């Protein structure tokens, strides 16, 4: 079928969102807004007050006697009715949806009360008699129990260090934080006794691999757990992946009590027992030649995943494995990865997911090395950036970088940020006693995760017994109704990114329509949606595989329309052009409505061999995502964007307060499907990164008690706290995705913490800066 070149492409246009009208009217339908089954009981969860304790007795008798209480599910019931969650490390301790004999973190579920309303359920929690013996708690990752210890070496690392002129060897720490979407988690669970199956509505962000983990814990085949997501989700940034443990917990409550059960997490529960980012302690050694050439990197990472290894952990540690060398041409890389358990909340997906942790060490090291080599930090980076003519580029650890022009991005960023002028201003300010600092960060932003990377937590030998895992695929369905309405269905479970709008743009291009002619349904239903184990919303996969699958499904519909139209217009299908809601051949045309009518109302007239109806599903699998090889190399992601940030800060010498004077980010995420939405992602990622740099920090005391359990203690940035953001783009298409797009939801979350830290280090002349750079912490570092 021919495509007229002059037709405007909707992809690439800053189309305003179709989602917004309902949301602005207060007509969004989020998890707590829907009542999918009548007469659901309301759940409240009894949680451990201690970080580590033996449960000697848990007696719900008085709670059960309270009018309005339907029943109680205890940890003992959970142990009896379910299996431990599956996880990718052989010797991880068993993890159930509630604790039975031993509680391992403050906030761990111990029992669920179900009552007529939430107020009564919370009253009843206080009536449960609980006898606990506190045990010694481990709150320090360095004292944690090691459950996985793997070492990797690529290239001749030892020789590189031997011939180095400079070895930078520093230790870095990235603390726990959590993305805290404003909507908390929620579940409605409805156990079907006759069939022995569970239907669950949840603001989950998959199915992803975690649907299988939840079904396995419930002892159900995948088809026995029907998961449905509501129309709208109030943000996730990864953390709602952890809802699956509550799908199991509330599903068991529904099964045990014989009623549908609903639960909406409150903020204190979310902060206490949600999904924190890992705390990572990294020793990084970097070998340099005198001229600045980076010769080798050697990581030693200790990753605190909390009380249990909750799937998909330890993925935070392996998501970036193909990018251990960052944006640089380095021949040799080694890493030791230790995963440790502490008596703290289990960790999980948070925007950036391993990127902030990795780049804090790597990009601090580059800045420190530049200073020791007497080079400008921009020059040292430029010296080592992978060249534009080297793509596709294979990293030592197996990453396959698809495309880019890193040097040009760096030049753009320096110019846009007026880097040279700031250096002059900085010198002048210093002469006046002011502490201005400039920080850079260059980060490769991987997107579209290889489903096999997590198996690196096992040795090659351990992996041989199991089915290899690889790839990343997504499905989409495009259909046209008997009177011509176009519907797209996707399993990408958006949480505010605007998938409906982009899918409408992509489909409009393929079918010669306007985006407003296309309805997009994003509610996932695992019993009817086209999905696979990768489906969902994480690792910035939508614009590559999600929109890519929509594109392919729409092309299938377009091909079928072309075949039907060719018979009507008396031409070859290749000569049919779809535009303006019609199929054209020369001056002759037939409307889309008529073509749909033929497919549905008059199948007798269809060309021979053509199926009736207009309903096509396509799956797109990202290429070049093989399973890890015997040498532990893995292409951990399919697409790789690039981000360069330039931060300018001033530190108040009296108070230690950090003011960000200027912030520039230049990104290359391939083809931008909708620049308006792309900038929204970049701004949002920046806000999370700036929060981590300056404010956000989950704090435990030495006994494992959480000290940041409310929004009064866990400080999220607000409007006056953030600088205006200057954004630049380049667009080097990815050769590996159907539309040339790469993910861009996480790059600035990876770059901003270290760019600001580099700027503060520059301002105060210290190497040992640690985020969050709160005034008290900076003040103590002031010379």
């Amino acid at each position, binding site marked *: 079928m021919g495509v007229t070149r002059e037709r405007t492409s909707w992809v690439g246009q800053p189309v*305003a*969102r179709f*989602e*917004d*009208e309902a*949301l*602005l*009217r*207060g*007509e*969004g*339908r*989020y998890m*707590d*807004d829907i009542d999918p089954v009548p007469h659901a009981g309301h759940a409240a969860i009894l949680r451990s007050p201690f970080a580590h304790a033996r449960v000697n007795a848990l007696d719900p008798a008085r709670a059960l006697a309270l009018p309005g209480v339907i029943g109680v599910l205890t940890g003992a019931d959970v142990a009896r009715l379910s299996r431990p969650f599956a996880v990718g490390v052989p010797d991880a301790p068993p993890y159930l949806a509630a604790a039975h004999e031993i509680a391992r973190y403050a906030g761990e579920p111990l029992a669920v009360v179900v009552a007529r309303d939430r*107020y009564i359920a919370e009253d009843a929690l206080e009536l449960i008699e609980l006898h606990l013996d506190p045990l010694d708690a481990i709150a320090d990752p360095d004292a944690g129990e090691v459950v996985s210890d793997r070492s990797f070496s690529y290239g001749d690392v030892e020789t590189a260090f031997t011939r180095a002129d400079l070895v930078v060897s520093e230790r870095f720490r990235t603390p726990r934080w959590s*993305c*805290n*979407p*404003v*909507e*908390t988690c929620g579940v409605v669970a409805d156990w079907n006794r006759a069939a022995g199956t569970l239907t669950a509505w949840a603001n989950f962000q998959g199915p992803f691999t975690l649907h299988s983990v939840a079904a396995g814990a419930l002892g159900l085949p995948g088809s026995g757990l029907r998961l449905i997501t509501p129309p*709208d*989700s*109030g*943000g996730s*940034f990864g953390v709602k992946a952890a809802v699956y443990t509550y799908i199991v917990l509330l599903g068991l409550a529904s099964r045990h009590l014989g009623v549908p059960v609903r639960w909406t997490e*409150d*903020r*204190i529960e979310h902060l206490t027992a949600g999904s924190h980012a890992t705390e990572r302690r990294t020793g990084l050694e970097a070998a340099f030649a005198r001229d600045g050439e980076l010769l080798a990197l050697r990581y030693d990472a200790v990753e605190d995943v909390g009380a249990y290894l909750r799937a998909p952990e330890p993925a935070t540690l392996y998501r970036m494995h193909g990018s251990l060398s960052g944006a640089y041409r380095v021949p040799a890389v080694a890493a030791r990865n230790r995963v440790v358990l502490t008596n703290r909340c289990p960790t999980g997906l948070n925007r950036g997911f391993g990127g902030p942790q990795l780049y804090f060490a790597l990009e601090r090291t580059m800045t420190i090395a530049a200073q020791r080599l007497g080079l400008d930090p921009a020059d040292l980076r430029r010296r080592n950036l992978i060249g534009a003519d080297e793509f596709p580029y294979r990293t030592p650890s197996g990453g396959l970088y698809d495309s880019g022009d890193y040097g040009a991005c760096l030049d753009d960023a320096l110019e846009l940020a007026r880097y040279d002028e700031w250096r002059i201003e900085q010198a002048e300010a210093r002469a006046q006693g002011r502490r201005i600092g400039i920080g850079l960060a260059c980060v490769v932003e991987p997107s579209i995760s290889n489903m096999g990377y997590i198996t690196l937590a096992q040795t090659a030998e351990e992996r041989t017994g199991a089915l290899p895992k690889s790839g990343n695929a997504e499905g989409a369905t495009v259909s046209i109704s008997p009177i011509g309405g176009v519907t797209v269905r996707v399993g990408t479970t958006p*949480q*505010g*990114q*605007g998938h409906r709008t982009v899918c409408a743009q992509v489909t409009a291009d393929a079918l010669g329509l306007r985006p407003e002619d296309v309805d997009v349904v994003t509610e996932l239903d695992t019993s009817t949606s086209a999905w696979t184990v990768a489906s969902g919303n994480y690792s910035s996969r939508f614009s590559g595989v999600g929109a890519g699958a929509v594109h392919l499904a729409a092309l299938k519909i377009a091909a079928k329309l072309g075949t039907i139209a060719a018979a009507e217009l008396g031409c070859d299908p290749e000569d049919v052009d779809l535009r303006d809601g019609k199929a054209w051949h020369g001056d002759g045309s037939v409307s889309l409505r008529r073509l749909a009518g033929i497919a549905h109302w008059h199948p007798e007239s269809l060309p021979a061999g053509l199926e009736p109806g207009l309903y096509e599903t396509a799956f797109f699998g990202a290429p070049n995502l093989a399973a890890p090889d015997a040498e532990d190399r893995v292409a951990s992601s399919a697409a790789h964007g690039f981000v360069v940030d330039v931060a300018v800060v001033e530190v108040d010498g009296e108070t230690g307060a950090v003011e960000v004077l200027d912030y520039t980010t230049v990104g290359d995420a391939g083809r931008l499907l909708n620049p*308006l*939405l792309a*900038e*929204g992602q970049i*701004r*949002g990622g*920046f*806000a*999370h990164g700036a929060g981590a740099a300056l404010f956000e920090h989950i704090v435990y005391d030495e006994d494992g008690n959480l000290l940041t359990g*409310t*929004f*009064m203690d866990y400080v*999220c940035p*607000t*409007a*006056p*706290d*953030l600088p*205006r*953001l200057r954004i630049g783009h380049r667009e080097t298409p990815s050769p590996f995705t159907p539309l040339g797009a790469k993910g861009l939801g996480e790059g600035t979350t990876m770059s901003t913490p270290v760019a600001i830290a580099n700027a503060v280090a520059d301002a105060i002349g210290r190497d040992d800066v640690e985020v969050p750079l709160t005034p008290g912490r900076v003040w103590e570092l002031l010379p």
Partner: protein
Amino acid sequence: MIPVAVEVNGRLRREQVEPRLLLSDFLRHQLGLRGTHVGCEHGVCGACTVRVDGAAVRSCLMLAAQVDGASVETVENLAGDGELTPLQAAFREHHALQCGFCTSGILMAASDLLERGRPSRDEVEDLLSGHLCRCTGYEPIVDAILQAVEQ
């Protein structure tokens, strides 16, 4: 139970409420006005902001019994059956919402601010210091509100 007579979005509602019922739960679960969202229930995030007798308040920090005799406006009333208000339209134009969960509260606080004069950029940012948005980075929200000021 306590009798409450309250004008909600221009309509008088007579209800019986428990003394401890939060205004946010009353609006959402008793009156079905689910455009008002609950993000923290301790008065920090601002998602549940509604207007009581014209003033922006946190509905999670008030009891339903306290609005007896008052007039309450929620996000559903801004445009009603008509077109989006200039403030709402500016949010769409500036991509000032992503997940949209915090938006209702910000719209109610901003509509209160706009009725009280012509705020500067600093004053708009000050207003937003009482609202958490985790998606947008705030700058598009500030721009949208300032555009509505101009209109």
